[in-house]
């Protein structure tokens, strides 16, 4: 009789624990007992998707991960990382070099960009996990009709059009090395710049407000065939594979399974994969979380 209540309590607790355990879809527990991690992401669609991909994949492995999305530009998000508000976020290797490290000499290959970036962040107690196959560099996009009419295939071809060019882009394009500055210094071009918000770069091409737009290699509209990008033989726009910047202390504390999960996700991110996910969010207006989830499930990571 005296043991009835404790026994009942133990039974109830056991049932509760079993119920809670079985209610989650995952059975993996590599993350059990590890400290909580905060992932941040920057202020545009692709970053939201990446943030969700990494967060959900880690959560599926039992890690306690919260996502703090839409923090701001590279600089602000990096500051959030160094000031401790977040523990990691996905960044582009070229952006680390030019915007964060302030290195202006362009690297000659994607691998070089990655190792230079990794070396730089190491000085601040951070590291990069494996990079993605896809790269999301800036590119000069234009209407296919405009390119054919003026026989444009590379950026160097623009020189023959003289100084009457208008390039549209996000406001920061004007001050970046992988932007107007690079076009001037490396290609000797001097177009007029028209600031546009990120969502309007293709509309501006359609309406003729600009002849060229600062677009990104993973933009969904590029899959429609209406637009084309000019190649960048002098690599002004650099290399922009994505690699999560993580605090070294966090990587150590979370154990090898943490990095393995991140790398497993990164390995799957090819340009077509990212383009399709971008399209689902940007054109179909699906939520980044739902799209990330569908992708991870299809590849058995969630």
């Amino acid at each position, binding site marked *: 009789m005296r043991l009835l209540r404790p026994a009942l309590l133990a039974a109830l607790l056991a049932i509760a624990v079993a119920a809670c355990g079985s209610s989650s879809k995952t059975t993996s527990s590599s993350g059990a007992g590890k400290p909580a991690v905060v992932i941040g992401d920057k*202020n*545009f*669609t692709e970053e939201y998707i990446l943030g969700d991909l990494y967060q959900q994949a880690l959560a599926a492995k039992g890690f306690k991960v919260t996502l*703090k*999305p*839409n*923090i*701001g530009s590279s600089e*602000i998000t990096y500051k*959030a990382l160094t000031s401790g*508000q977040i523990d990691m976020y996905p960044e582009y290797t070229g952006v680390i070099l030019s915007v964060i490290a302030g290195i202006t000499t362009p690297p000659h290959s*994607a*691998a070089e960009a*990655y*190792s230079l970036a990794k070396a730089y962040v190491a000085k601040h107690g951070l590291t990069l*996990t*494996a*990079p993605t*196959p896809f790269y999301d560099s800036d590119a000069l996009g234009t209407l296919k009709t405009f390119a054919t009419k003026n026989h444009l295939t590379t950026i160097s071809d623009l020189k023959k059009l003289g100084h009457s060019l208008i390039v549209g882009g996000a406001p920061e394009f004007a001050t970046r090395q992988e932007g107007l500055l690079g076009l001037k210094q490396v290609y000797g071009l001097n177009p007029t710049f028209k600031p546009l*918000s*990120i*969502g*309007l770069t293709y*509309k501006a091409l359609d309406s003729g407000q600009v002849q060229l737009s600062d677009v990104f290699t993973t933009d969904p509209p590029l899959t429609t065939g209406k637009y084309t990008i000019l190649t960048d033989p002098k690599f002004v726009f650099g290399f922009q*594979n994505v690699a999560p910047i993580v605090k070294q202390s966090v990587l150590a504390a979370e154990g090898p399974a943490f990095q393995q999960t991140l*790398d497993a996700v*990164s*390995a*799957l*991110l*090819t340009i*077509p*994969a990212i383009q*399709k*996910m971008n*399209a*689902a*969010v*940007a*054109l*179909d*207006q*699906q*939520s980044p*979380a*739902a*799209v990330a989830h*569908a*992708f991870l*499930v*299809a*590849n058995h990571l969630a």
Partner: protein
Amino acid sequence: MTVLLAAAHAPVIPNFGNPSSFACERANRLFCSDWVSHNWSTVLWPALRQHLVLTLIAVSLGFVISTTLALIAYRRRWFERPVLIVTSILYTIPSLALFELLAPSLGLNRTTAEVALVSYTLLIMFRNTLTGLREVPDEVRDAAAGMGMGPLQSLLRVELPLALPAITAGVRIATVTVISLATVAALIDNEGLGVPILTAISNEVFKTELIVAGGMAVGLALAADGLLVLVQRWLTPWARARSA
């Protein structure tokens, strides 16, 4: 750690839904009901809920602070002017600027948003509460003293109740102001109805999200205003006769 720059094997790219089911979104028509029902629980409702929380916290804190300040100013006249000056300055500073001035020191989080939002409530509620208290007729105060009430009793049983119309008007205006400003707070802590509004603009100006989130913000403010008018009338039935 090997540098993987080519995928070890091609990923499976699922069909993110049947393309035809997103025809409305692709055409960016003014209102896609499908999108609303799909994203209600993941995007719209959380934003609304966060907006309500932001508002409630800001108005409650602001109410406590402004009432305290008003009570002090009621007893010590010299206190009024400095409080008016400080709260007026805070009120005059445009919200975008105030958020950006606070963020570097306080961080990109709810605290910063709340500090700014509370600042905007202070002037209105302070001024209204103080005015309401001051407008209690002297005869009434004398009558309360004559009945043997001390200052605290008089305050609680006579003066504050009579000041209720003005106080609740202040709360009403502050609430609606905060609901409006909290949309900008999304810039700082990524919460509230400002989030879908700003997302919709950056995302090729997705009209449905813009109109629904914007409409919800407007609707919320009007609903709060209407509700507080009713509360005001309920709390002060004697005032209705006066204003008729």
